[in-house]
C-alpha cells in the first residue's frame, strides 16, 4: 500500500518580487513500512519537501495523495486534522513545549484529537514506555538529555498512530552514540510497520535506512534501495 504519493510537485517561494523555485517537479512514492533517508546538500529542498509531505505547507503545483486520499486541496481545518491523524513530526530541535512535562507533551496531539483524559493518559504511557521513558513522566523538557528529548518527541509523534513519521535531521543535535540509539528506535518502530522518512546529511545515519533518496537543487537525483542496511545495536540512551 502506498502511503505517500507525490506527483510533479513544485514549490515556489515568493518574497516580494523575488521568486525561488525550491522544488522543481518532484515525484515520489513511499510504501507502507518503508524506512527512507532523504539526503542532499544544504538548500536542496529537503525541509521544503518534508513540510509539503507533512501538510504544513502547500505545493505551488502538483498532486499529493496521502494514504489513499487526495490531500492537495484540503481546507486549513482539514489539513490540521490530517496532520493530527496521519502525520508524526520529529524535528532536529526537538520542539517540545517547555512548560509541559513529558507526559503532557505526549498528550498534546491526543488532546487536539479530542480523547478523554484517561484515554490520553493510557496512550501516552504506552508510547512513552515504548521509547523507554516510562520513568520520566513528570520531568520537564529542560530536565532531560538531548537523546531523551528526542525520544519524547518520537513518542509524541507516535501517539496518534500516524501513517508516517517525518523526521527532519532528528540526530542533528545529538552526539554520534545517542544518534545511533535514536536510529535504533526508528528501526524498531519500522520493524513493527511504521513508515519513516528521515532527512539527514550524514551518510552514517542513512545507512540505517532501507532506501536512500537524493535530492539536489529541488530535483530528485537518485532513488534506490540501500543494499548495506545496518542494524543499530546498543542499549537504550
Amino acid at each position, binding site marked *: 500500500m502506498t502511503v505517500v504519493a507525490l506527483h510533479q510537485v513544485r514549490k515556489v517561494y515568493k518574497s516580494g518580487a523575488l521568486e525561488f523555485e525550491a522544488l522543481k517537479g518532484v515525484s515520489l512514492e513511499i510504501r507502507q513500512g518503508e524506512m527512507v533517508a532523504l539526503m542532499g546538500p544544504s538548500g536542496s529542498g529537503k525541509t521544503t519537501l518534508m513540510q509539503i509531505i507533512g501538510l504544513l505547507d502547500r505545493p505551488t503545483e502538483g498532486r499529493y495523495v496521502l494514504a489513499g486520499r487526495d490531500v492537495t486541496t484540503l481546507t486549513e481545518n482539514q489539513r490540521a486534522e490530517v496532520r493530527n*491523524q496521519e502525520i508524526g513530526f520529529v524535528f532536529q530541535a526537538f520542539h517540545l513545549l517547555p512548560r509541559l512535562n513529558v507526559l503532557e507533551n505526549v498528550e498534546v496531539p491526543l488532546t487536539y484529537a479530542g480523547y478523554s483524559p484517561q484515554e490520553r493518559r493510557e496512550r501516552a504511557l504506552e508510547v512513552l514506555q515504548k521509547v523507554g521513558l516510562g520513568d520520566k513522566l513528570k520531568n520537564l523538557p529542560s530536565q532531560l538529555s538531548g537523546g531523551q528529548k528526542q525520544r519524547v518527541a518520537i513518542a509524541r509523534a507516535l501517539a496518534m498512530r500516524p501513517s508516517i513519521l517525518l523526521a527532519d535531521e532528528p540526530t542533528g543535535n545529538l552526539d554520534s552514540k545517542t544518534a545511533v540509539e535514536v536510529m535504533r528506535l526508528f528501526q524498531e518502530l519500522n520493524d513493527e510497520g511504521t513508515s519513516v522518512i528521515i532527512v539527514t546529511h550524514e551518510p552514517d545515519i542513512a545507512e540505517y535506512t532501507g532506501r536512500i533518496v537524493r535530492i539536489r537543487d529541488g530535483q530528485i537525483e537518485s532513488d534506490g534501495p540501500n543494499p548495506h542496511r545496518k542494524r543499530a545495536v546498543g542499549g537504550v540512551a
Partner: protein
Amino acid sequence: MSVSVAGSAPQKVRSHVGGMNPWQVFRIAWRAILGNPLRSVLTTLGVIIGVAAVVALTMVGQGSTANITRSLQSLGTNLITIGSNTGGRGGGFGLVRFGGPQTITLADAEAVQSAFADRIVGIAPTLQSNQQVKVGANNLNATVIGTWPDYASVRNAQPASGSFFNETDLQSRRRVAVIGYGIAQDLFGGQDPIGQRIRIAGISFTVVGVLPDKGDSGFASPNYQVMVPLSTYLQRLARSSSTGQPRVNAIYVQAPDKDALPRLQQELTDFMAQRRKVTDPSEYDFSVQNQADALASVNQVTQTMTLFLGGVAGISLLVGGIGIMNIMLVSVTERTREIGIRKALGAKPRDILTQFLVESVVLSVGGGILGILLGLAMAGSVGQLLRVTPVFDPFSMVLAFLFSVAVGVFFGFYPASRAARLDPVESLRYE
C-alpha cells in the same frame, strides 16, 4: 513484547470529535499565566485598580447615601422646613445653609404658629452656633441650638432620660439644656447628667434631659448637639448685633400626616410670600421644603454618583483592556514557536484562538476578582476613615465581574486571532 502502534490500523478511532474540553483549555491558559506571574499581575493592574475603585466607591457611596437618608428620616416625620434662600436655589433639606445671611425671623415663626395652629402638629424655629461646652475641666465643641419645646416632637428629639424643656422654661428664659448622648458620655462619663451644671460659652446651664444614642452619622450628629430655649439663646448666646427682629436659621413645621405635606407646603409658601409682599417666586428670600423633596434630591445625588462611577469604571476598564491586549500581543509573538508546534500536532486555528482568548479572559477575570477583593478592603478602610458603614452590593460586584469578562474577550480577540492565523511553517522556523 511490544504492541504495534502505527501503520497497522488504517481506520482511526476518534472518541470525541469536539476537541478539547473547557477545563483543559483553562488549565493551559492558567499555566501560561503562572509562567510569568509578575507580568500577569502588572498586566491586570489596570483592571484591578479600576474594579477596586468602582467597588469601593460604590460601597462607601451607598453607605453614606444610606446615612443621609437615615438621618433625614431621623430628623422627624412629616416635616416641612422653612429656610433662608439667599441667591439661587435653597440649600438641601435639613442641610439648611448657615453661612449666608438669615432672612427669616422669629416673627415669621410666631406668625406661622398663630395662623396655622389648627393645621399643624408642632412648630420649632432654630438658631444655632458652635460653642464650647464645659463641665469642670472637660470641654468640647458642640452645636448649640436655641429652639422651642415642640422641637422634641418635631425633630424627633425626645430625651431618653429627664425631659425636654417646656413652655415655662421658654417664657422665663431659664438656663436649662438638653444634651446629646455623645456629650453626656464625654463630659460626664458614667455619671447621670440630669440636674448637673454645664457651661456653654462660659454661661452656666442645668441639664434637664439627655437624648438617646442617635448613631454617628458622620456630620451634624445629634449626639453632639445641645438644645436650649430659644429665648435664653437669644439673650445669652446670640451675637449682640441685631437691631429689629431676631433672625433664625430655620423653622421646622410638622404636618399631621404625609398626605397633608404638599398642601401645607404650598400654603406656607403663600403665607411667607404674603408676609413679604412679593409675588414673583424668583424674589423669594425663603424656601419651603418637605422631606420627600429632600429624599428625592438625595436620590438625585446618588444617580449622579452612579453615572460618575460608571464613567470611572468604563475608562479604567478600557485602560486595563488595552494593557491586556498589549501583553497578549507580546505573548503571541513570544510563543510563535509554541503555536507552530501545536499546529504541527493538529491544532486548528479555532483551537489556538480559544487558547489565547481564554488566557486573556482568565487574566482579566483574575484582575476583576483581585479588584473586587481589593475594593472590599478599600471600602472597609475608607469607610472607617469617613465613619461610614459601607453597603455590600452584590449587584455591583457581579457587574464588575461581567465587565472584566467582556474586557478579556474584547481585547483578547485581536491578539488571539493573530495567533490563530499564524503560518505553521514560519512559526516553526521562528527563533
